[in-house]
């Protein structure tokens, strides 16, 4: 009989296979093929969910080095994988509609999906690292092929920041195994052989650098605005880029179990940094005149919350952080796409064009609803995340939670200001008449919104996935 343990593996590599097939497929079938693969991947994910998460599949990959192929999709990782599969599908949907001759873009989306799913499924540090870097390549190519005039700068910055962090992480990974004396790099083995003492702190810092770049966390965030600003106007690469912000997940799955003492020790500083990131970037977002940059900073601000939750090591906060991480992908991604739609209609990403909603009510309405999700209006998924993060963080450090809480005000300020100057107010004389949503665009914005609302109201399915996983991870800390 078929072993369900293999499902994650199939789910991971199916998009890559699809991506390679796209090069062979005739031009006119590419959209359908890509969509089919994306749906199939999502279906597989749902199947894993339906069967209650997969078990751990552990194979020896490079026995001589103690590197294993360990994958598992359950708990938090399954939730994130599902969101990834879903948003990849949405991205495929929009890319097929928006980008002329989209074959390459679709292939890159699928290739990146493989990397992202791999990141979430990996239960071996080296495997994690490999997928972590694998996702980088398609992302770079999207920027290179479809980016804007100053993309080289953005590209170099993005790659340099990412690699700077991840190479330090690589050193830490090596250290984790050798200083701890684990036989393999598999998480289960590493957990049995923890590094102790000051070495743990140093290794944690190495790990942290990588994750802080990918979170991103101030001051390692500078790549993010440029990355989004220079990416293709459609916002499709931005969706994938948003999905790639996996720092919070990495910290949660690997850093906390492997560096329990260090994460406790550094908790105050890191929480402060995370709160600062949230507030700082929200404030910077307030000053942005370009939608992509604004969304970049908004996303950064969310990531500050995610980081705050993870760093606080409080159960509620960590669950909230994971919840936020998973669902912010939905609305942030959809917002990028809505910005792409705006750009398609008026050829501008400026936040001060004014009056779009007069012509495009549905587009404006959906965008507004997504913004409400983004600024954590209750009843949307973002609220559960942000509220839990703040609630949990407050139990640990009230002042930091207060500082982070200020972000909610700033978020309202930047979101509503930009929304108002773009969609509300009067359309200036001579402005291009704006077409409303058509065809699949309804789905592209509607589906994420519906899911964001559903999980904001009825969170049990997602919480049932995440809560036990978080509890077991935090149990390693000795019940703090």
């Amino acid at each position, binding site marked *: 009989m078929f072993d369900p343990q293999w499902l994650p593996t199939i789910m991971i590599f199916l998009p890559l296979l699809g991506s390679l097939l796209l090069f062979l497929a005739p031009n006119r079938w590419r959209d359908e093929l890509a969509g089919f693969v994306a749906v199939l991947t999502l279906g597989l994910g749902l199947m894993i969910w339906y069967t209650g998460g997969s078990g751990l599949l552990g194979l020896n990959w490079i026995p001589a080095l103690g590197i294993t192929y360990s994958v598992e999709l359950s708990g938090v990782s399954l939730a994130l994988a599902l969101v990834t599969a879903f948003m990849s599908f949405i991205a495929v949907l929009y890319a097929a509609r928006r980008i002329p001759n989209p074959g390459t873009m679709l292939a890159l989306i699928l290739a990146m999906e493989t990397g992202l799913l791999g990141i979430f499924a990996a239960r071996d540090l080296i495997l994690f690292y490999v997928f972590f870097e694998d996702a980088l390549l398609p992302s770079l190519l999207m920027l290179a092929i479809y980016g804007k005039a100053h993309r080289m*700068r953005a590209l*170099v*910055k993005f790659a*340099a920041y990412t690699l700077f962090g991840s190479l330090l992480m690589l050193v830490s990974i090596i250290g984790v195994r050798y200083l701890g004396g684990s036989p393999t790099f598999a998480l289960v083995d590493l957990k049995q052989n923890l590094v102790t003492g000051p070495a743990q702190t140093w290794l944690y810092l190495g790990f942290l650098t990588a994750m802080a770049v990918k979170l991103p966390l101030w*001051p390692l965030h*500078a790549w993010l*605005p*440029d990355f989004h600003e220079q990416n293709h106007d459609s916002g499709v690469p931005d969706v994938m880029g948003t999905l790639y912000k996996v720092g919070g997940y990495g910290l949660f799955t690997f850093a906390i179990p492997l560096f329990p003492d260090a994460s406790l020790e550094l908790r105050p500083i890191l929480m402060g940094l995370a709160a600062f990131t949230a507030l700082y970037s929200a*404030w*910077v*977002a*307030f*000053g*942005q005149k370009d939608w992509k940059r604004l969304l970049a900073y908004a996303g950064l601000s969310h990531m500050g919350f995610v980081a705050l939750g993870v760093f606080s090591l409080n*159960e*509620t906060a960590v*669950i*909230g952080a994971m*919840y936020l991480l998973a669902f912010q992908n939905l609305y942030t991604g959809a917002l990028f796409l809505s910005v792409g739609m705006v750009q398609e209609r008026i050829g501008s990403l400026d936040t001060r064009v004014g*009056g779009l*909603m*007069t012509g495009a009510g549905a587009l404006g*309405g959906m965008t507004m609803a997504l913004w*409400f999700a983004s600024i954590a*209006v*209750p*009843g949307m998924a973002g*609220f*559960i995340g942000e*509220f*839990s993060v*703040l*609630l949990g963080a*407050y*139990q640990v450090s*009230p002042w930091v*939670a*207060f500082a982070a*809480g*200020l972000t*909610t*005000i700033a978020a*309202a*300020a*930047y979101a*509503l*200001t930009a929304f*108002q100057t773009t*969609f*509300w*107010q*009067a*359309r200036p004389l001579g402005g291009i008449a704006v077409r409303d949503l058509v065809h699949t665009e309804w789905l592209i914005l509607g589906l994420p919104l519906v899911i964001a609302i559903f999980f904001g*109201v*009825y*969170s*049990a399915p997602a*919480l049932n996935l*995440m*809560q036990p996983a978080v509890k077991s991870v935090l149990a390693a800390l000795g019940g703090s």
Partner: protein
Amino acid sequence: MLPLLYLLPLLPLIGFALLMVFPRLFPGKSGGWLATGLIGAAFVVAVLRYLGQGDTPAQETLWTWLPNMALNANLSVGFYLDQLSALMALIITGIGFLIHLYSISYMGHDARFTRFFAFLNFFVAMMLILVLADSYPLMFVGWEGVGTASYLLIGFWFSGRGSESSDKDLRAAGEQEGVNNSNAARKAFIMNRIGDLGFMLGMFLLYKLYGTLSIPELATRVEGVNVATAGVELACLFLLVGAIGKSGQLPLTTWLPDAMAGPTPVSALIHAATMVTAGVYLITRSHFLYELAPNASLWVAWVGGLTALYGALAALNQHDIKKILAFSTVSQLGYMFLAVGVGAYSAGVFHLLSHAFFKALLFLAAGAVIHALHNEQDVRRMGGMRKFMPFTHIVSAVGVLAISGIPIWSGFFSKDAILAAAFETQPLLYLIGLIVALLTAFYMGRWYFLVWRGQYRGAEATGVAHPHEADTITKIPLGILAAGATLIGFLNIPTFLGGGHAFDSYLGRAIPQEAHEILPSTEWSLTIFAVLAGVVGLGWAYLQHRAKKLDNGPLGQFSSSALYLDNVYDGLVAAPSRGIAGALDTVDRGTDGLIGSIASNAAAPGGLFTLWQSGFVRAYAVSMLLGTAAIIGYWALKMVGSGA
């Protein structure tokens, strides 16, 4: 079998969903009727639940929701019905129904008629969630939900009503209106968010103190768990910040007058009768905490008193027919805060109830006038409207009498109770309350005389020579509300007037009653002072009217600029934060540019490097030789050093 509580928010939510997603299914005014009908149905549910209510509160849990709350069980979505929430549900659905009805006529010509009702339904649903919530987080859902609805409705005319016009001037005015409306909506949302942060912090602290956020559980746990008073005080202050934000109290008050940018029914429903009273509701709901926190309660009372004074002063010289009412609302809300601050929860809620009636009435009447005058809102261009709109005039007069605290009308009873409670605990606040009562009577008198009496002054400016009386659909809510504003006071006739405190004793089953220890003689004198204040105020207004000086009320610019509070905020908060945002953006790009220019330009190290990699083979040999010499020399030195 009583209908389940979740029907209350669900019915309007269904309306919202239908009207949002399938607006095409509801041509003409059918959407409005659907929405109104659903609210009516909700009102029926509320009445049924009210009638079927026992002494023990009902709690109905739907499903789990927030992670890890309340002793590691997930926090649930659940509704809680006690006397307080039943009353609130009645107010919301009842007055909501009337205002929906009114809106069918008022918004009849608007292009986005159906959308308006969707938003209204959404608001009512959120408000019901707010009052029925069994936990603070769920209440927060409603709390922010009504904020969102308020945002949507204030910004309903986001592009201005004339911005599509071909006429240049009209278009310019429309564009300006669009910007103003949008700004007002945003301001309301952001200021509410400030309050919301306070509310959230309050929740966090409560959770830290008691480990739960479920209201009934908290209420019981407060008695059992011993925590430092300072903690409770702080939590109550946090909650107060939340209440301040929502109820437009000082210092977060400036959004409320601006919120009048929304359509008039919105002002009546949200910014007078229901949403803004949520702060009062929150504090009343949290009475078990405030009882443990005397200092925080005192803060509440003072905030209320000062806001009442502020609102009254600012209302003195407004020229917008709705802004006068808006500042009046601020002021009246201050009264309610004062009441709950001094522990007179029942009096506060009672004033909430009566205020809901008369203020909704006044707003709707004002709306009728605005409608009749084709969107003219400046009271200086009105006057003599009683001739054109007799029915509306009568109901307006009822409203003015009610708010001025003239006996038999509801305002008299509710205000009197508050002033009595204030006198008992904080004489200074009583004095303020009394002054505010006088001012209230004056500015409402001014409003009345300017709009309804004297000569019609606006024929030229508005282009409406003969304003028409409101239609029937408009008159029905006005009539019902006027009746309510007149009669509702009799629900709670105080003992010294021979009443039985019916309202107090009903509410007393849910919230504690202040003990009345005032002598009847004192009560009498207090009542006389209060009535006197109302009469003097109205008389003062009449005298001014006779002297034709009402156009410009007292205090001049100071009052019409709302005590310059907006300017202060703009200077202290808004402008600096915009500046800081710009500066931070520059810094963010700058640090980045710095790193970038080092990396990309690399002129200095690059030049150095070219100098080194000079292309001369002997230069390369120099590196080699010096390298070797350094290595060997290092070793030799080490050997000498180690004494070999």
